[in-house]
Structures are given as structure tokens and as C-alpha cells.
């Protein structure tokens, strides 16, 4: 928690209530960017207060939300999302959504922050979990595909653009030919990929927020982490 007054470093928190937070920690440690990155595992409100940005990892969204509420973090997290950059992967992406389909009985708590509706486990159960190459133009070495690891992944079923919200930028879509054959959500699309269909979007940016329905932290490829730090976090510090 060395919080430099001179802003020579930047503190990136990783919500460490449940899930694959250690994997994000390893990825961030290896990054080399202009500023020194201080990594903080966030479990309490005090932890969150010293962060300039936050990563919400993969895990179980219901478990993470409950633990956040029990730790008194739900309100502070919702405030954090309003002002600071946040990246959600998989379960984290569900928490960043404005609404969710396929929620647990009785509904589940979200943080909001991105103008999307997601469906949980959209492609099916674990048997339909898969790996597929993705084209992501915004990344460094963009001609090299990014290896997407989709584990009981959520699907973006609707975008809700609004003039009052920051515009949304689609960073990557998955080709329908790469989806598990057993899934019934999206029909096979020969022209690949229908620009009106939000369901093939797997990486999305809105303002300083980033959403990925797959797990860059489960690969050895740090380009998404680099993108988040460079484009979302460092640029937000400049604009403040």
C-alpha cells in the first residue's frame, strides 16, 4: 500500500474474495509499463480505497457478490466503478453488467458500470467450455491471434447504448464457426460475423472499463493486461 504522493506508481487492485485472483497478480507482476505498478489484493474497504483501478477476476459471480456484501464492499465497489477503471473477466464481467439473465433464483447482486445485459453460462455447462483463437486489433502484435479460454463463459445478449454513457467499443468478436456445436444460442453465420449481433462479442470497452468473457489470465499472453493498464488505467490518470 505504498501510495506515492508523486504518482510515480499506480495501484491496481485485484478483488480477492474468491476465484482466480492469483493468476491476474502473476500477469500484472510481469508487465513492463511506464509507471511502476503496485498490486493490491482487495478484501476490505480500506484496501479498495488505495486503488487507482480494479480487476474483478473469474470465479463464481454469486459467491463474489455475497462475499462483497458480507465484507461491506458492495456499496464502495459500486462507487468505485462510477469513477475509476475496472476490468471484469468472466464472473467479473457478469458483475460489471447492468443486468443479467440466467441469474440464480431470486436474482443476484451486480455492480453495474457497463451498459450490457449478459447471460450466465451462455454457451452451456463445463462440457461446452472451449479454447479458441481471437482476433483483437487493439492489441500489440495484432496479427498474432489471442488465445481465448472460455470456461462456462457469459454471453453478452444485449447492448444498451445511451448518449449519456461513454460509447462502447467492440474489441473482439468470436467467429460463430468456433463456438461449441452443441450451443443453440447463436445460429451459424456464414458471413461471419453479423455486426448487429451482440452475442458474438467477447471483449468490449466502455470508457475506462473493460469486459472480457474469456480468461486472459489463464494464458501466458500478457497483451490484454498491457492493454488494460495502458489504455484504461494510465489514460484515466492523465485525464483526471
Amino acid at each position, binding site marked *: 500500500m505504498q501510495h506515492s504522493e508523486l504518482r510515480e506508481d499506480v495501484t491496481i487492485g485485484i478483488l480477492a474474495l474468491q476465484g482466480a*485472483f492469483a493468476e491476474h497478480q502473476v500477469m500484472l507482476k510481469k508487465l513492463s509499463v511506464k509507471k511502476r505498478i503496485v498490486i493490491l489484493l482487495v478484501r476490505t474497504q480500506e484496501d479498495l480505497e488505495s486503488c487507482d483501478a480494479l480487476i474483478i477476476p473469474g470465479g463464481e459471480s454469486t459467491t463474489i457478490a455475497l462475499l462483497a456484501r458480507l465484507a461491506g464492499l458492495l456499496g464502495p465497489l459500486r462507487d468505485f466503478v462510477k469513477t475509476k477503471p475496472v476490468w471484469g473477466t*468472466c464472473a467479473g464481467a457478469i458483475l460489471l453488467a447492468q443486468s443479467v439473465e440466467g441469474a440464480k433464483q431470486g436474482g443476484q447482486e451486480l455492480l453495474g458500470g457497463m451498459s450490457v445485459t449478459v447471460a450466465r453460462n451462455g454457451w452451456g455447462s*463445463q462440457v461446452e467450455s472451449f479454447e479458441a483463437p481471437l482476433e483483437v486489433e487493439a492489441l500489440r502484435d495484432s496479427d498474432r491471434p489471442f488465445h481465448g479460454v472460455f470456461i462456462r463463459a457469459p454471453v453478452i445478449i444485449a447492448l444498451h447504448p445511451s448518449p449519456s454513457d461513454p460509447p462502447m467499443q467492440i474489441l473482439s468478436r468470436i467467429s460463430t464457426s468456433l463456438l461449441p456445436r452443441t450451443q443453440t444460442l447463436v445460429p451459424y453465420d456464414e458471413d461471419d460475423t453479423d455486426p448487429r449481433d451482440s452475442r458474438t462479442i467477447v471483449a468490449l470497452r466502455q470508457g475506462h472499463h473493460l469486459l472480457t468473457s474469456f480468461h486472459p489470465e*489463464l494464458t501466458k499472453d500478457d497483451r490484454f493486461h498491457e492493454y488494460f493498464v495502458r489504455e484504461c488505467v494510465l489514460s484515466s490518470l492523465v485525464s483526471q
Partner: protein
Amino acid sequence: MTTPSSQPSGVATPPSAIHHGAGNPAGTPVLAPTRSTQTKDGGSSLGTFGVKSGLAQMLKGGVIMDVINADQARIAEEAGACAVMALERVPADIRANGGVARMSDPKMIKEIVDAVTIPVMAKVRIGHFVEAQILQAIGIDYIDESEVLTPADEEHHINKHAFKIPFVCGARNLGEALRRISEGAAFIRTKGEAGTGNVVEAVRHQRAVMSEIRKASVMSEEELYAYAKDIQAPFHLLKETARLKRLPVVNFAAGGLATPADAALMMQLGCDGVFVGSGIFHSGDPAKRARAIVQAVTHYNNPKILSEISEDLGDAMVGLTIVNSDRKNNMSTYKPEDELKSFVSEDPNSKYTFDSERDASQSEICREEKKGLKCITLAMHSKQMFVAMQVRPFWLP
């Protein structure tokens, strides 16, 4: 620790276990394609070792709870479980009632799948690959090839590479853990002593794994070859473990955890998360205890929070502790009758009364002492206890 004869002594998967046709070709865990249209260059692939072990990584820092029906599954989900384990009887009841314990009824498992959004696991007997094929067809998320059920094969475990669905397996030491990983397990847990509410065996197994990893991590390559032979582990997995200084897959604690403190203890001993079986739904207030254990796994290093969440949880799981335990004590040799005998022998001339819920698997027996009643709860059906007391001999008023 010696390896009992029921464990396979070899490290390779025996060919006899590769007959079933489900899933990927055997022995090719990474990027093993199963769907022809998606296996061309630049295609996608299902059921890779990456997504199998990846789901286990998503479960880290979480609690997986044993449930026997959809209602319990809902309670577990509400309490923050990161997954549920569907089974017909919790281990305490398997231990108490005896008989052959098998895979659960697929209908019950499907009801649980429909009731919750979190991953659903289910147990199969060791070596019973057809039970595993059935569970894969149902479309659950994880299979536990479990020693809690009655083994179907005393020589061979399931060849887990041949499935798209991932497997978790129990282990008591590093050699056993690495043998299971070599057979395709994407997730390891301690065996512990399921159904007892006694954490001592889980601690023993976790400490054994950690100390063997520490030993291996400072060995030279020559020593690692000898050590691999010694602990009956595949050399390449041992070498990777030594380099990583941890198991190459996620490692949870299981078998006998009953309190938030037990869960935090196992986390501090280096586990990535915990399984809780009988400890929740055999306790006084399952929802509250379940939630406390979930919090304990997140805040395992914060004694202040641990003290707050441990308060006022009602009765912990009782009576199934391993009394007079010797280390060989296990499911097949534990006899509640022996415990009853030793309780009665403390004061054979007192008046005894016993009580149990109708058809419950455990009964409480009490005797009058100067200070009031002294009671113990045993894993015996009331009828069983009645018979045992008649044999003593005791007669009921």
C-alpha cells in the same frame, strides 16, 4: 506413509481402462480435439486440459458443499458456495448406514443442476468409468472419483484423459496426487476422513503433500529420479512440481472439515479452497454455518474477521468423531458399537436413556450423573442402538 495395496502401483494408465469411447483420445490432454468441424487449423477445441484445470482455478478461494437434494443445493448457493457436490447420502450417513455407496440417481442430479447456477459436481466410484460416462452425458461440470463411495475397481482408476468433463481426485501424499494427475485429474483434494467432522486426517494429508514438495524442490535431477521411484510418481510431473514448488493443479482440502476455523486452518496450510461434506447439513444451523465457512476461506489470514464469523453458529456436527482413533481407522473398520461399549463401560451401573429422530441415522444416548445428564451422539440407527443395548444387557422401562 505407506501406500495401501488398493492403490495402483504403476504410474501409467493401464490399457484395460481405455476401452470406453467417450471424449478425447487418451493421453493427449492439451488441445485434444473432439469435434471434427472445429479441429481445422485455427479452430477451437472443447474439453482441453486447459479448460478442465481452468474451471478448478475459478473455484479457488471457494467452498464446495455436499448436498443431497435441490433444496440443500439452493441453501448452499445462497450461502455462497462456489460449487455443489451432488450425492445420495453425505459421508456421515454412508459411514453410519454402511452398504455399497454408488453414483447418485441421475434424476436427482438433474434436479440439482436445474436448481442452481453454480457448477455442479457428482461422485463416481473409483474405477467406474461407466458411471463417469453417464455423468458426462447429463452435462454436469465436474466429477469426483471418490474414495467416499465403495470402489468399483481395486487396481485401476478411471483414465480421465478420455473424458471432456474434468475430474477431481483425492490424495494422501504427493505420489498419490501425481499419479492421479498423470491419469488426467485436473484438480486434487486431500482425502481426509470424510464423514467424521474430524480434521486431523485432512491436516495429515496436506502436511504430507507440502513437506514432500518442499523436499523435492531442493533436490538435484539425479535425486529427483530416485525420489520419483520412491514415491511412485511420474518423473516429469514430479520435476514440474519441484520447479513450481506446488502441485501443478489446484489443490483443495476435504474430509472432516466442520468449522470456519477448520477451513482457515487448511487454507493456511496451503490449500486453494475447501470441500465441506457432512459438516454443514449435519450441523445445527446449516445456512449460517455454510456462510461462515465461505467467509473463513476468503479471510483465512484475518483472525479478527474469523473470530466474528465463528460466533454463535449453533451446534457443530457432532458425535461422529473418531474416538480411540488409530491411524488405520477408516470407513470400513469404524464401529459405533465400540464407542457405545466404551461409553457404557465408564459407568455400567447407571441408568441409560436414548433418543433419536424418526429414521435418523444417528441417535443420542445419555446417562444420569451427579452433575446432570452426560450424552453422546453415535452414528447408529435407533433400532441398531436398541439391539446393541439389549446385548449389553440393558432393558428399557
